């Protein structure tokens, strides 16, 4: 099972030293729709470039989950960049993927993913103001 976005990601990173594997495809096929549902719920649209950026972030994330790797903590002030309620909502979607895999995601994972949504939301806001 795969999607056009996953295949676009696979093509983009295909000649790197860590191309998309079947295990990646399986995990991304589960995770990316969760992210898509959240984005649609919030009315956040991802253009092609932002979709690819989210997908490559998701690729690194699902790989970390598989090997039980945790990132270092980030500056908590970054949370101030995030819209109210987004951290909690993104925590829910991250846990929906991680819990069945026995991975307890740290707040850093939630924050990094939330920053992707925030950037897309802000870009969308700027674009609509210019239109």
């Amino acid at each position, binding site marked *: 099972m795969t999607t056009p976005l996953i295949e676009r990601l696979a093509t983009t990173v295909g000649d790197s030293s860590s191309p998309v594997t079947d295990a990646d495809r399986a995990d991304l096929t589960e995770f990316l729709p969760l992210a898509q549902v959240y984005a649609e719920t919030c009315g956040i649209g991802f253009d092609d470039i932002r979709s690819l*950026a*989210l997908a*490559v972030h998701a690729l690194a994330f699902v790989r970390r989950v598989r090997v039980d790797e945790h*990132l270092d903590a980030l500056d908590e002030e970054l949370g101030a960049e995030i819209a109210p309620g987004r951290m909690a909502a993104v925590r829910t979607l991250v846990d929906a993927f991680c819990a069945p895999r026995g991975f307890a995601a740290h707040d850093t994972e939630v924050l990094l993913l939330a920053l992707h949504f925030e950037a897309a939301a802000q870009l969308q806001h700027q674009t609509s103001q210019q239109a």
Partner: protein
Amino acid sequence: MTVKIVIGHRLGKGQAVADGVRAAGGEPVLIPGPGADMKVGDVMDAEGAQLGISFCGSGGAGAVTAKAKYGHDIEFGMRSAQAGVAAVEQGRTVLGFGFLDSEELGFKVTEALLKKLAKEAS
């Protein structure tokens, strides 16, 4: 020989990497402000830079954006200066790292690029 290296950091950092680039004899172009990793390809194009270094949590967003928009040869998800050196030696033109704002990284990557360009020119 002078090389121009663009640096974009998701959190608006990257000063230490820029210092390392300068110390090794390169010319850093540090993109200011948050979300700078996503602009690495654009600034490389505008500046005619030989190399771009992007930093974000997972080390990929800026690199894949540069590839999608400009066709750069990329490596992503790197966590060490040595991985960056290997990528330069393989001819990658945009390097995606996790959050690593270190002078060592800037120095070693620049040193590797200068060495590679000198070898190609000889």
